[in-house]
């Protein structure tokens, strides 16, 4: 149904329930929906399963949500980073569960949820601990592992520009998981730097069509710290 423009991030995440599976965009800090995560922390929902590529950096974004004790489980490809100390401590203390998924499998499992694919066979992970206990099948002489969709209750995404129909464009590698997650959750909330009238985005360049977007929020101006600048 129609895309609504929320007054602010608090309104946009007001109905997230305890125990939800929340897909959180971003690859490191690029594409991380900071305003929405901060609002989710204020909102107070807990016992969350977070699906994201990483498990937080420094004390901001996902790391802050973890620090606030709202996360029961993290499904991600790469929790361990130079500045993932919040997650590291929680994990070592046994206070957060972790499911590590190869990065492409993580993306494809969400795509499957969004695309109505019941399951798929992937050659990735075969013969490794991440395929243990999973069903395998040989196809054309190559062993594949059966992977199932990851469906979110909510997706929190950061994009660059939206029009009032909810069509989205992203910016450079901040695109990353946003377009996939937008297809894979029942409620999709997007923070953007700019909202333009319908017709303000060239239809040839739309990356996420508005059909996938439930709520738009204008993002606060923010000066991002760059992680690994040389």
């Amino acid at each position: 149904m129609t895309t609504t423009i929320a007054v602010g991030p608090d309104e946009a995440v007001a109905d997230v329930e305890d125990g939800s599976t929340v897909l959180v965009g971003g690859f490191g800090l690029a594409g991380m929906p900071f305003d929405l995560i901060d609002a989710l922390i204020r909102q107070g929902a807990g016992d969350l399963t977070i699906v994201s590529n990483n498990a937080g950096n420094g004390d901001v974004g996902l790391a802050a949500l973890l620090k606030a004790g709202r996360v029961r489980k993290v499904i991600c490809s790469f929790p361990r980073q130079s500045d993932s100390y919040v997650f590291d401590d929680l994990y070592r203390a046994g206070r957060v569960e972790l499911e590590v998924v190869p990065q492409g499998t993580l993306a494809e499992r969400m795509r499957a949820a969004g695309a109505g694919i019941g399951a798929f066979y992937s050659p990735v992970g075969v013969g490794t601990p991440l395929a243990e206990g999973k069903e395998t099948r040989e196809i054309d002489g190559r062993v594949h592992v059966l992977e199932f969709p990851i469906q979110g209750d909510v997706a929190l995404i950061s994009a660059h520009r939206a029009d009032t129909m909810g069509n989205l464009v992203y910016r450079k590698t901040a695109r990353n998981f946003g377009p996939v997650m937008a297809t894979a959750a029942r409620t999709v909330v997007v923070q953007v730097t700019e909202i333009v009238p319908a017709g303000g985005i060239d239809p040839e360049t739309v990356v996420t069509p508005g059909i996938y977007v439930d709520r738009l929020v204008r993002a606060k101006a923010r000066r991002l710290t760059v992680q690994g600048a040389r």
Partner: protein
Amino acid sequence: MTTAAAPAVEHTDRGPLTTDELAARIARDIPASSYVNLGIGQPTRIAEHLPRDAGVVLHTENGMLGMGPAATGDEVDPDLTNAGKVPVTELPGAAYFHHADSFAMMRGGHLDVCVLGAFQVSQHGDLANWHTGDPDAIPAVGGAMDLAVGARQVLVMMKLFTRDGAPKLVPACTYPLTGPGCVHRAYTDCGIFAVGPDGVRVLETYGSSVAALRERLDVELKD
């Protein structure tokens, strides 16, 4: 990257390769006009040694082809990083895409070459580069398994021995695998090795003879 059985070239008149020399040596073996992923960490330094006119196009798993050198000064843009989250630049003819498309590209066999770091490589090309198996270690795989399975040529860049002197080219990996039988070549400071179903063949040595490496490694070395 031919594997015709030429005898190993022994560079015994010098020491092992420095990291920079190793990166340059690998760069020489990257075919012109190929599509290449340089993983994260040390292999990304290979980019600095690729000739500008070779037309090699760099892929980064977080959604870009046509990645340029690391960004400096005003070029730094938090929305433009490589897979190691290091700010990078964009070359003319670049393209951005989302994660499912990026990994479809990888898994689907469209990249010509990837270069990965490794904890261990087995004589048959098994790769272990994501988990030491230490029960206290936090596992983190990223895109390594996807690259190991997907790229047409998987090259490893690593030191041949750990700081404790243990070989990293081994009969069988003792660390959890990233992928079985996926590595084509291991480029190390002490030598370059073709690995695979037929075992290990030494292509070059640096700072040691093949005979000397035989003493230190537990794998059968063909030369």
